[in-house]
């Protein structure tokens, strides 16, 4: 294979594989920026993938046609946000340990989704979806020589939606009053409280946004990559998104970069097995290369990451 051919495979797959991670990591940014650890991203994504598959399927039967996946996205966003309320209620109102509550969310999603799949479809997984998000050329941009086909040819719209959302989230968090308050709540909730910012409300909104984004991430995975939902559709992607968020230093664009990096490393490790030179390397080294590369990147040039200061601590009025 020549270089263009290799890049032509690696880059588009990197971008498409990254989309669910980007979205979910953005959700994580919201929650953790507000001071609520969200290890439940995995469960939220699972719920999103389930909703994505179920409502795309029903969308098809209800005659929504190719709009079915988009309909399912809306549902995944809504239900993801509602589902994340459990984490919000436990960890914000009842001041439960945020990690425990997140772990519980993961358990709950794992049980509930498959339980519901069995109830609804009388099978261990949803049927295969006919209406999915399919690849297409991005108009105009894909005509640019060399980089056009690489970056914009035969791509998923959802990938570009995810990338665009990263910028939107960046704008929200760093440019709007909402974002200012959100960050204040995550850094120093008492300061925010004394300035009239409702800490509880902000954290609820942030956690629900994380549910919405992770739900969307899961739904995108189901409708563009797996094509159905089974017990193993979401197996670790939520944790990778968590890692991307931390790798990206709790910054939306950082998370975007980290997710793309994961995607690139992943697709390189897979495609690498078909590249003559890399073929000679034992299989296992290619398999672990995305993870090792991430660790090296962190140790080499990313280094210290400062979490929001109040992260993990329930807010109690007047507590010192």
């Amino acid at each position, binding site marked *: 294979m020549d270089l263009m051919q290799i890049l032509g495979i690696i880059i588009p797959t990197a971008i498409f594989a990254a989309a669910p991670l980007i979205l979910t990591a953005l959700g994580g940014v919201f929650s953790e920026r507000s001071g609520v650890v969200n290890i439940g991203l995995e469960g939220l994504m699972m719920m999103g993938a389930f909703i994505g598959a179920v409502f795309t399927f029903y969308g098809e039967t209800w005659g929504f046609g190719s709009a079915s996946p988009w309909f399912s996205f809306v549902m995944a966003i809504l239900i993801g946000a509602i589902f994340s309320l459990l984490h919000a209620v436990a960890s914000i109102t009842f001041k439960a340990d945020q990690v425990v509550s997140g772990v519980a969310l993961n358990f709950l999603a794992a049980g509930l989704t498959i339980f519901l799949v069995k109830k609804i479809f009388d099978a261990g997984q949803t049927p295969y979806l006919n209406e999915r998000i399919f690849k297409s050329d991005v108009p105009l941009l894909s005509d640019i020589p060399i980089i056009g086909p690489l970056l914009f040819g035969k791509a998923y719209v959802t990938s570009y939606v995810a990338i665009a959302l990263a910028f939107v989230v960046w704008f929200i968090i760093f*440019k*709007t*009053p909402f974002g*200012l*308050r959100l*960050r*204040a709540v995550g*850094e*120093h909730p*008492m*300061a*925010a*409280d*004394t*300035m*009239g*910012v409702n800490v509880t409300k902000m954290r609820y909104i942030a956690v629900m946004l994380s549910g919405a984004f992770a739900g969307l991430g899961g739904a995108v995975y189901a409708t563009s990559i797996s094509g159905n939902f089974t017990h193993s559709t979401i197996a670790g992607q939520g944790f990778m998104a968590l890692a991307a968020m931390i790798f990206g230093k709790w910054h939306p664009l950082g998370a975007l970069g980290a997710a793309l990096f994961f995607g690139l490393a992943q697709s390189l490790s897979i495609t690498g097995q078909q590249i003559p030179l890399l073929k000679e390397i034992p299989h296992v080294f290619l398999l672990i290369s995305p993870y090792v590369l991430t660790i090296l990147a962190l140790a080499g040039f990313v280094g210290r990451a400062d979490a929001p*200061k109040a992260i993990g601590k329930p807010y109690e*009025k*007047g507590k*010192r």
Partner: protein
Amino acid sequence: MDYVIEMREIRKEFPGIVANDNVTLQVQKGEIHALLGENGAGKSTLMNVLFGLYQPEKGEIRVRGEKVDITDPNIANNLGIGMVHQHFMLVENFTVTENIILGQEPKNRGQVDIKKAAKKVEEISRQYGLRVDPYAKIEDISVGMQQRVEILKTLYRGADILILDEPTAVLTPQEIKELIQIMKRLIAEGKSIILITHKLKEIMEVCHRCTVIRRGKGIGTVDVANTNRDELASMMVGRDVSFTTEKEPGHPKQTVLEIKDLVVKDARGVSAVNDLSLSVRAGEIIGIAGVDGNGQSELIEAITGLRKSTSGSISLNGKEITNHKPRKVTEAGVGHIPQDRHKHGLVLDFSIGENMVLQTYYQEPFSKFNQLKISNIFDKAKALIEQFDVRTPSVHTEARALSGGNQQKAIIAREVDRSPDLLIAAQPTRGLDVGAIEFIHSKLIQERDANKAVLLISFELEEVMNVSDRIAVIYEGKIVAIVDPKEVTEQELGLLMAGSKQSEKGEE
């Protein structure tokens, strides 16, 4: 009489303690009203009630004559009450402007209009003489400026009743002077101020009236014009307090600490200590006077091994300890009462007992063969708590739950008890009430009298002048003068600290 604030018979309980027991506070329009009391007397609690952070069990609050129910800081804000908290409520990685506008951001097409906000901040800051850099990050600015940001926050919200909870505890004398000017300007504008402070001098200087609380109970309100420091102090503590520390002249002996041409870089890589030389002898207290940020922290950190020095030497009792690890320095005979008690001095989540052996846990009798001797540790802690009058429910109480004054006493107990040849005390009385200060000063002098060397770093001139046998003035990382406290005036010292060379005085 018309009061702008009237708190009547306020009662506030915390589990196991009555923090405010029928306290009444009446503030007139346009006055600076002092609130005085020992550490833990209930001052902050009372103010937090007024600001809506706590709900009182009993009592009523009137603002400008109207009975109000302040259930939330928002309501207090709307009533024109602003509060500068004892522990600053600032988001460290936000800019000054962001901190000020938080919650009431000017908007422009959905976006925070930072430019407009910064302009407004500049306007207010000019109006009241509160110098700040609107675009600086809080973590990069001095405590004094942070304080001004806190005040600006309330003014930005249009507050005309300001509560300042111990605003001067962390300020340098210069900054205190500025703050006093600012307060005067504020009342001239018709605002009213409630000021909490342990510094009676400040009360005498700026306040009109003073309300005293002791152990949660209101003792009474006096006109400052008709009282004096001693009366206030005894009202607050319940006994007489002496202000000038009694001490015999010292008898300095051999040199204990010898610093030669020391250079230390700060976190940003700039030399904070520049060719500094200093020696401290056994049996004397050397006070280091200087404006914050002239290399004091870096000097202490270099001596104690918490920061590397780039050149020069430090020796203790004739032995090199330059760039030794903290533990080696400690074992060589250095005790250190750190400036930031929460960051360095204590593990807040450890019990007070465990904190008492922070420097010695690995030695006998507290452990043997890597095994802790728990009973020895807690016996020791009990003895120290007794000896230094640390007020804590038990040795098993988390250090976090103690009041600042008692936390400080615990640290001092730990460091003094090891009887180090050199005791470094950095701002040992910050935020403490006069009774506690008296106690700590007497401990430092006791150490000196036991032939130990003591190095005292303080921004408080009165403290330095009262306690030290010699005063070394630090300016831009150098000792610019060594003076005798008995022969120098506060004004002269102030000039030296500001870098003026003319009035050089003293032995060298």
